[in-house]
């Protein structure tokens, strides 16, 4: 039996364009903003609120005065727009605090070097420049506080000599790491106790390099936020790792110390620790001791964030299957080898969002130092308002400060997302 075929298509139908409601702007809008009636309502409400905020904000900010001499002048010109003149007059203070004006190049250079120093850490391509990241902390301290170049570099010289001594011992004379480490430590201690001071004196005479000393009282503005924030972030990370490992340790004493430390620090608010640093420590130190206030604050902030960091990393460690530990042990790796090669790379990768979260939180928490009288941007805002010329300025300062913090925190968050994408192995 034959079927009568009326029509056979010889060619494939070219795919027709998707419906207009699915692609392009309209498609995007439908998918993202109006996918259901609930979404549509939320979209319309959001747009409404954004518009009414911008409706007031844009004319206020766009027409703002930048060149008046005081708030009074702004108000007399046009009271309905922003008086950004306060930023024109005070932006240097917001950035550098009370740092002497003729030395502004020093914090600026420190900041540029900071950007250079973190590149090798953030992007493995540039890892060969890691030596700069190592010398950066000393360089930054010298640039910011000044004084003799040698009194800072002696720390590096001493530590390098100690490390070289340790390596020589291991390579040539000793097989026992522990004894070599103790010997190296003792010789370094001897160096710092007895040799370093005369050596610094000698170097100062032979080749005097020094910058005018700037005391911590003068530090302020974003310079201070960055000093406290960056030091806290950099120092709390390794301490956090050690605490996290210590908390999982089988050695009861180490475990107890770590748990005690973490739980104690997490149990008190940061501002309490800052009060201890600023107020209570003075009672316990002998009178006349000059324990730098910025250093005290940095130590407290570091300890605080290390405790949180430890818990974040512990979360990463807990996320690893037990098999990873067992597999590395079965390969004959020692504890530290397996941590370094197997466990930590995976645990840290899982913890990235939490780690960056802690960093961002720490950076913003630096504004709390204004309560203990340090002149960070928020503290400076009230100082600036106390000048009768600017008494009553409110939004302009906070908008500017908020914007600066946003740039830094947003940058950190963007980097963490880049890192997550880069390290993603389970595609």
């Amino acid at each position, binding site marked *: 039996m034959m079927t009568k075929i009326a029509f056979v298509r010889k060619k494939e139908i070219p795919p027709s364009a998707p419906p207009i409601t699915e692609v392009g702007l309209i498609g995007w809008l439908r998918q993202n903003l109006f996918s259901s009636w609930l979404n549509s309502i939320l979209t319309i409400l959001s747009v409404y609120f954004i518009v009414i905020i911008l409706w007031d904000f844009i004319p206020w900010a766009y027409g703002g005065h930048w060149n008046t001499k005081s708030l009074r002048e702004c108000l007399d010109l046009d009271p309905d727009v922003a008086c950004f003149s306060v930023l024109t007059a005070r932006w240097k203070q917001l950035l550098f605090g009370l740092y002497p004006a003729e030395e502004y190049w020093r914090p600026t250079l420190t900041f540029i070097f900071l950007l250079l120093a973190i590149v090798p850490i953030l992007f493995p391509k540039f890892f060969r420049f890691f030596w700069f990241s190592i010398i950066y902390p000393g360089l930054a301290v010298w640039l910011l506080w000044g004084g003799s170049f040698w009194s800072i570099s002696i720390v590096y010289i001493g530590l390098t000599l100690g490390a070289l001594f340790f390596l020589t011992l291991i390579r040539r004379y000793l097989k026992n790491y522990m004894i070599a480490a103790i010997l190296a430590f003792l010789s370094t201690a001897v160096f710092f106790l007895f040799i370093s001071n005369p050596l610094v004196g000698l170097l100062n005479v032979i080749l005097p390099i020094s910058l005018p000393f700037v005391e911590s009282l003068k530090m302020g503005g974003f310079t201070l936020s960055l000093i406290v924030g960056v030091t806290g972030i950099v120092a709390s990370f390794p301490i956090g790792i050690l605490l996290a490992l210590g908390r999982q340790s089988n050695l009861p004493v180490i475990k107890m110390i770590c748990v005690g430390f973490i739980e104690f620090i997490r149990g008190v608010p940061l501002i309490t620790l800052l009060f201890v640093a600023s*107020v209570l420590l003075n009672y316990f130190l002998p009178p006349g001791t000059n324990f730098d206030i910025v250093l005290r604050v940095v130590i407290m902030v570091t300890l605080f964030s290390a405790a949180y960091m430890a818990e974040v990393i512990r979360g990463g460690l807990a996320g690893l299957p037990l098999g990873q530990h067992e597999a590395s042990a079965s390969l004959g790796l020692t504890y530290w080898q397996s941590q370094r090669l197997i466990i930590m790379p995976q645990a840290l990768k899982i913890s990235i969002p939490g780690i960056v979260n802690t960093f961002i939180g720490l950076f913003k928490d630096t504004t709390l130092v204004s309560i203990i009288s340090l002149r960070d941007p928020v503290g400076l805002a009230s100082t600036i308002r106390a000048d009768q010329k600017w008494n009553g300025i409110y939004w302009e300062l906070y908008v500017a400060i908020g914007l600066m913090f946003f740039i830094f925190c947003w940058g950190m968050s963007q980097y963490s997302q880049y890192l997550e994408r880069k390290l993603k192995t389970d595609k």
Partner: protein
Amino acid sequence: MKKLFFGVLAALTFAAGGAFAGTLDDVKARGNLLCGVSTGAPGFATVDDSGKDVGFDVDYCRALAAAIFGDPMAVKFVGLTSAVRFTALAAGEVDILARNTTWTYSRDTDLKQTFLGVNYYDGQGFMVKKELGVKSTTELDGATVCIQVGTTTELNLADYFKENGMSYEPVPTADNAESQQQYLAGACDTYTTDASALHGTRVNLENPDDHLVLPEIISKEPLGPLVRHGDDNWADIGRWVLNALVIAEEKGITKANIDSWKDTKDAEIHRLLGTGDDDILAMVGLPKNAMYNAIKAGGNYGEIFENNLGATSGINIERGVNASWTKGGILYSPPFR
């Protein structure tokens, strides 16, 4: 346990206090005076656009530095918030606290401090919008009041309304700037803080004439510099530098005319400026011309007031009770002899 802790703390404080005897020697050895001032109180202490410390309290410390060193710039200003000011003084971070601090019984005794006198008689006042039609605080029954939490002003407010049988609704704020914003936004009918701050705030409002600082002052806020207990000589120095500035105004000695008193018949002026024969300032360990230098630094009390709080400063506070007793105020220094 708590008792033990505070006992130890007190013992340490005492030990620390004992070790500070001879503040003048410490200051001289250091080469500068450490003066605790506010991190920001309009008219009293702040930094100007160029980063220089300025203010009423700042000028007092400059006068003190000038008395000791002959150099009004030989002073480092340590900005202190109200939360840490007393401990900073007790722990020796500053030599003297000139931080618009109210002299009260408990601060004088319990906190073991010595107030050197009063450099400004302040008091708590109220600001209202004129359109409210209120002319006196007694008409504020039922008002919403913006008030800084955790301050003596909060307690004064409660006392005052209770005494007068009135009710109010507090709108708590963190600081004067927030009070001001809340008040302008209409969150409260009136806002209250020290009258000096109200005047400074009012001048910079959009239309100052729409606002009124009510005439009543409901509390006594005598502000003055203070030092730690235990060094009476140091306290004497601070007290008499303050007195010297007041006497200078009384006698008409100004920064400009200070060199023209050599031939005066007034023996007290000779003692004060060190132009006479007797050197009475040696008793406290200061040079003979110490008070001359102190007055020369920023002028007499009246000039310092005018530059920081009066018309020149733009804050426009009237002298009122802060005028010399010879001009109807209550500033009255013991004689300099």
